[in-house]
């Protein structure tokens, strides 16, 4: 059965190998240049505040060289790989057999359908995981200098956006989280099995591809938005607005509304933490976006303490809900486990359907 699976899977496997090779060539062509630029940037062995400037310069240089595009393409490839695999490997696996009637040939050989499906799912699932994780590991190797530069604060605090916002993304940002660590393994296994399951239910390849893609897309959007933040109870903290290391601040004084929007980018004392929500509360503890009129006078805005200092002196605090950086692997593990559990559930359903309810 392994040999038959390989015979039927050969074309897809070669396509995947070609895609991996193309990806490797793209990264190998740009990676050494990035690494040598990093070595020459002065960041290694830098001291104190100079590091941040050097890192920012380095990232700006990368952007000028077009490496931001490579970064974007590589991240997109890792994100899309499970979906593509689910469509082109998963969906036809059973649907194509049913559609062309070859199931009558495949399932009347001297081998049970359970074994047939077990081998196909195992080989396809492991290959899907290997391809996606392969892309992820290659990209992680390639992007290592960027990660170090971002770690030194390069790009992160620059408000003009000149370094390219994609380099600001922390490990918890949706794009980075989903393309690194072990989560690509879970996505790949799940997307493949989802494709197989939808194919078995619908019985026709092209509609199965469309439905599988839609379902996978919805799940991949829903999980980071509504599920991932709540995998572990968030920590709460509150700080006077002046002690926030970096904030995004919009002040609007139109119509004398004195409204402002203050969002914490970093959690003080928690480098790399994942900020879930950040709310400004007044001295009474009520969420507000309205500043005291005194704080928006030109004299205050131009003073050393500035607007934030004025808010702080009026008892305004920032209440932050966050996940500490130390939980990164716990999050990776939990999310991967969820996807693998879903994968097993779908696989179990496929076995049952193939053995009992096939129509």
């Amino acid at each position, binding site marked *: 059965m392994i040999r*038959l699976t390989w015979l*039927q899977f050969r074309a897809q496997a070669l396509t995947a190998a070609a895609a991996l090779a193309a990806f490797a060539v793209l990264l190998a062509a740009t990676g050494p240049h990035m690494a040598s630029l990093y070595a020459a940037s002065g960041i290694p062995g830098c001291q104190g505040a100079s590091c941040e400037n050097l890192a920012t310069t380095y990232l700006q240089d990368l952007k000028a060289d077009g490496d931001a595009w490579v970064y974007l393409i590589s991240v997109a490839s890792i994100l899309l790989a499970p979906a593509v695999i689910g469509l082109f490997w998963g969906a036809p696996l059973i649907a194509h057999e049913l559609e*062309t*009637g070859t199931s009558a040939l495949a399932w009347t*050989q*001297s*081998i*049970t359908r359970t*074994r047939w499906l077990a081998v196909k799912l195992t080989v396809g699932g492991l290959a899907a995981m290997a391809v996606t994780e392969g892309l992820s590991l290659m990209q992680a190797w390639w992007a290592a200098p960027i990660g170090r530069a971002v770690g030194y604060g390069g790009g992160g605090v620059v408000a003009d956006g000149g370094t390219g916002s994609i380099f600001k993304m922390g490990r918890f940002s949706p794009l980075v989280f989903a393309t690194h660590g072990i989560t690509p393994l879970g996505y790949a296994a799940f997307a493949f099995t989802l494709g197989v399951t939808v194919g078995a239910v619908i019985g026709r390849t092209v509609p199965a591809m469309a439905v599988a893609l839609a379902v996978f897309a919805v799940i991949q959007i829903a999980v980071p938005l509504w599920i991932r933040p709540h995998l572990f109870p968030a920590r709460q903290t509150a700080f006077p607005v002046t002690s926030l290391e970096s904030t995004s601040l919009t002040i609007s004084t139109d119509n004398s509304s004195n409204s402002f929007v203050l969002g914490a980018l970093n959690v003080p004392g928690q480098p790399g933490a994942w900020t879930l929500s950040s709310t400004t509360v007044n001295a009474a503890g009520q969420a507000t976006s309205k500043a005291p009129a005194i704080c928006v006078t030109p004299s205050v805005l131009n003073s050393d303490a500035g607007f934030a200092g004025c808010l702080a002196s009026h008892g305004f605090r920032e209440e932050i809900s966050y996940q500490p950086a130390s939980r990164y692997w716990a999050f990776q593990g939990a999310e991967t486990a969820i996807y693998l559990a879903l994968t097993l559930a779908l696989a179990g359903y496929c076995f049952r359907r193939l053995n009992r309810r096939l129509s």
Partner: protein
Amino acid sequence: MSTAIEASGLGKQYRRTWALRDCALAIPEGHVTGLVGPNGAGKTTLLRLATGQLAPTRGTISVLGEPPAVSPAQLARVGFVAQDTPVYARMRVADHLRLGAWLNPGWDEELARRRTGQLGMDPRQRAGSLSGGQRAQLALTMALAKRPELLLLDEPLASLDPLARREFLRGLMEAVAEHGTSVVLSSHLVSDLERVCDYLIVLVASQVRVAGEVGALLASHRRLSGPRRDPGTLPAVQDVIEESHTDKQSTLLVRTGEPVHDPAWTITPVSLEELVLAYMNPANDIPARRPRLGVAS
């Protein structure tokens, strides 16, 4: 005699419609059995149930004494050629034979090579580019080289031209003669069945209308024609299968275990085709069987 396929109360429902309902039959081993019936009688559903590709909604079916597809050993005992003889279009002929060799412990490599050689198939040719006849032959070769005890064929002849049909049946009969394989062949081409089948089952709306060895069936049915007469006045041993009357004349197709002596009748034997058509006609009310003809339904 042991049974190739035995079903009781067998039913398969698709959403609202029943493809097969309350079907009871027993097909004996050691025969080439023709399974005949109009479209929608449930022949394909029955064969798909018998190969375990479908699970029954109701009732039971056993094939060679075991539930279908229950184990690799049971699967190895049953060969199947599906309707339209599907093959993997993008795989080569040789790959199909390798597939068969990999998945079937009893694979007869010599038989597979000999048959494809005789048929003049290029092993490197992709199955998708074979003619309908060759594709059917490839599917038959795969089923035969598995060396099953029972071979089930679902309308394998439907899409073949007369020459390909003859070649296909010749290949089938050679294998049956060589290995003593039991065969169940569904078809609505009675003339083809006549050539190969020695056992016949007529299935109409999931029900067995008649079942028996072809020779015995032909021997026990007669066409009687003579002056117009009420069929109710016939001797009790004569069952009227079909009747037609004009003003003066009656023509009856009767089943009887005994010779007909009434001199008023002109007695002619019936052909298998006439017999099948008479039993397939839903207008004919088939009386309960009195003489036992092979395995009863």
